[in-house]
């Protein structure tokens, strides 16, 4: 076997192992109440974006998918999605705040 093939196999084994461990950890870690807290945090961040009239569609999609996963009792997935939604919502809030001043620079003069 060529060295590169060995490396490929080794890499695969490592990856599969790591994924399995990570999956087990997140599934174990996320309980319903933890998901609910994360979902609440995401919703609150999204409300801030809404107040600034700057919501993003991917945030809405992530919130919806999180709720769906939670309804199917897949709290690991639901938790990940809620966290993603919160990060997206926060990024949209940041964008709105930055643009509140920056837009002036783009005006044709």
């Amino acid at each position, binding site marked *: 076997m060529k*060295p*590169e093939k060995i*490396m*490929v196999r080794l*890499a*695969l084994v*490592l*990856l*599969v192992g790591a994924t399995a461990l990570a999956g087990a950890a997140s599934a174990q870690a996320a309980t319903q109440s933890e998901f609910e807290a994360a979902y609440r945090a995401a919703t609150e961040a999204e409300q801030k974006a809404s107040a600034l009239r700057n919501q993003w569609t*991917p945030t809405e999609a992530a919130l919806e998918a999180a709720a769906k996963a939670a309804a199917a009792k897949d709290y690991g997935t639901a938790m990940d999605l809620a966290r*993603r939604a919160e*990060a*997206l919502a926060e*990024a949209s809030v940041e*964008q709105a705040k930055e643009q509140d001043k*920056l837009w002036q*620079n*783009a005006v044709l003069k």
Partner: protein
Amino acid sequence: MTRAAKPATARRAVASLVAAGLLGAGVATLLSPALRAQSAAPGQALAFDRAKGNCLACHTMKGGDVPSTVGPELSDMKMRFPDRSTLYAIIDDEEKRNPETVMPPFGKNLILTRQEINEIIDFLYTL
């Protein structure tokens, strides 16, 4: 097992690992050119995916069928961007470098993950 029949997931896994830097640069230098070309496949898929990189919307590049002229043509990338971190910074948040750019901040706005950006860079370096 023929090369063609090799599962895409395996190729993707290898590329991911390399891109994520889990095994460090050492492996990359061990890989033959053929394998390196293979490791660009996931990056190419991401670059062409309209929901992900969607590079073809704005850039003319090898593999696209209609020319786009919003951004510069993507070619000779290794020569133009010898420093990988420059290319990463452009994809991550070009507005930071050039406030007037129309390029979306793929990293900053969570359009692509770190790993996905690195996979795209692997692909861009084949152009």
